[in-house]
């Protein structure tokens, strides 16, 4: 459960987010909007990379202002990156272990947690493969394994579907849908791929110029004329 209250982020004279207020309770929530709408800024505020100018964000009732940046992973806020950040000189297993070092294990054996996370992401056989030998798709999935190990609350994905082949995209969809059931974490998904959003997200928040212009069940939101005007002009022609 993410509660955003009057959140403003100012970069010099530019407003990344402008008095954004939203409550996101759904297990898989989409976040869409045109370029520069503030999607990545919102994720960065949740990760702690960007400090809000005013306003607050709460995750599961806890004000994130009180959680220092390096403790957010342990608190349960995880993410994947638009440009993947797999550590090339560690194996896939060590990549997951590097995150597991800093998050709660709930007393379970580390080795088992690492293997479960890798298997969940479809990398069960790649545990000892070094990062630099993984292909682009495996790297994406490894980031998901890193983000889901050790009791996450919120997994944020910044354009996970970019540049994937069709069958890879389908596997990604099924994994995203399973995250909530697998580890109980809420998923916040940023992507330009409307198909991916409508296939996975039960609710969607649309941003434009740093403010929310629509929120609700994904199909309804994507059909909203205001949203189409701002963002989905292409869809309007085809329907």
């Amino acid at each position, binding site marked *: 459960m993410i509660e955003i209250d009057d959140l403003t982020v100012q970069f010099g004279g530019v407003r990344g987010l402008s008095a954004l207020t939203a409550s996101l309770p759904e297990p898989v929530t989409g976040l869409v909007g045109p370029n520069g709408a503030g999607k990545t800024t919102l994720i960065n505020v949740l990760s702690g*990379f960007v400090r809000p100018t005013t306003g607050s964000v709460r995750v599961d009732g806890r004000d994130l202002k009180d959680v220092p940046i390096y403790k957010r*992973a342990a608190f349960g806020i995880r*993410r994947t990156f638009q440009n993947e*950040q797999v550590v090339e000189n*560690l194996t896939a297993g060590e990549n997951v272990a*590097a995150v597991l*070092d*800093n998050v709660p294990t709930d007393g379970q054996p580390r080795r088992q947690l690492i293997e479960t996370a890798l298997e969940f992401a479809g990398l069960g056989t790649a545990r000892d493969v*070094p990062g630099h030998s993984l292909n682009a798709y495996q790297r994406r999935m490894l980031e998901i394994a890193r983000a889901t190990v050790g009791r996450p609350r919120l997994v944020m994905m910044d354009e996970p579907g970019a540049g994937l082949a069709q069958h890879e995209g389908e596997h990604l969809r099924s994994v995203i849908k399973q995250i909530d059931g697998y580890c109980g974490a809420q998923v916040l998904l940023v992507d330009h791929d409307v198909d991916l959003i409508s296939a996975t997200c039960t609710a969607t928040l649309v941003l434009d110029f740093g403010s929310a212009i629509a929120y609700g069940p994904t199909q309804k939101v994507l059909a909203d004329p205001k949203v189409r005007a701002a963002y989905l002009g292409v869809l309007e022609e085809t329907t």
Partner: protein
Amino acid sequence: MADQSLEVASPIPTARLPLGVAALYAAALVGLYLLPAALSDYWLRTLISVSALTVASLSVSLLFAQLGMVSLAQFGLLGVGGWFALRISHGLGVPFELALLTGGVAAALVGLVIGLPALRMRGLYLAIITLMMAGAIQVLISAFGFPDGGSGILGKSTGTRVMMARPFLAQNDEAYLRYALVIAGLCYGLVLLHVRGRPGRAWAMIRRSEVCAFAGGVNIVAYKVWAFALAGFLAGIAGGLLAGGVGQLDASAFPASQSIMLFALTIVGGAYSWIGPIVAGLLLRAFPALLNDFRVDGNIATMVFGIGLLHALITAPHGVAGQLRDLVGTVRRLLGGKRKAGP
């Protein structure tokens, strides 16, 4: 192939050949016993310095290979470690091991202070700042000199200079060389323990990118500071070993330029491999000694180092160690062996 490329990443390779490793240990033990007995006094003293400087180079390669950070102050930290080891050895008459550890801890604390700018800077700026620190250490050391058995805080003697007490187990040069080699081995073990464990993974994340490390929950400040403290500790141990080997230290032997030389030769040797620091130690001390043996001016070594550095930068990014590994791989392929390359 996987093992081979992993080696590039950590200064210590991930050898997984139990039989080969056992044979290596056995050979090392035999060598440790036989080698010192076969050497002249001159070469014994040279190799004692080599083992100390191998540890010093290990400290440089730890920072460079694990975090991509350049510290040009490590040779100065040798001086700091040596100073404290000498002071406590002369002042309190403690066993050598305790003096060595004190030198290590003192240099770790100074190394930690030197590392503080690294929390905000990297690359060239960090290199310059650490070089200035090395300069500061040089000024202090040449102003106050090393303790040599006198009284007072500085421990300067007005009469005859007193030699540092050697370890109980290793009074003569032969035994001290074995002792120094074992200490160097322990330092490698300490680094291996870090690299293969939690700190190594955290350092790898930081080196990948700081956002990656933050998203993975790594406490970047703590792990950077820890790396600098550990590197300082190693440099301090190297300084203490050097002090024990010679019995005293020369105040003019720790200029800032030596720190640059140490860094350059670590690159030439190969910062990413465990062999690299050994090559660097040999180049720094054994190579000039070899030239002297052939009655060639040892200063020519500096020119050779310059050429070696150019060579490393242009053709061998992983230094001599990387080339050795490639050579071993080529030989194995030529012999038709299908075993994995890597020692």
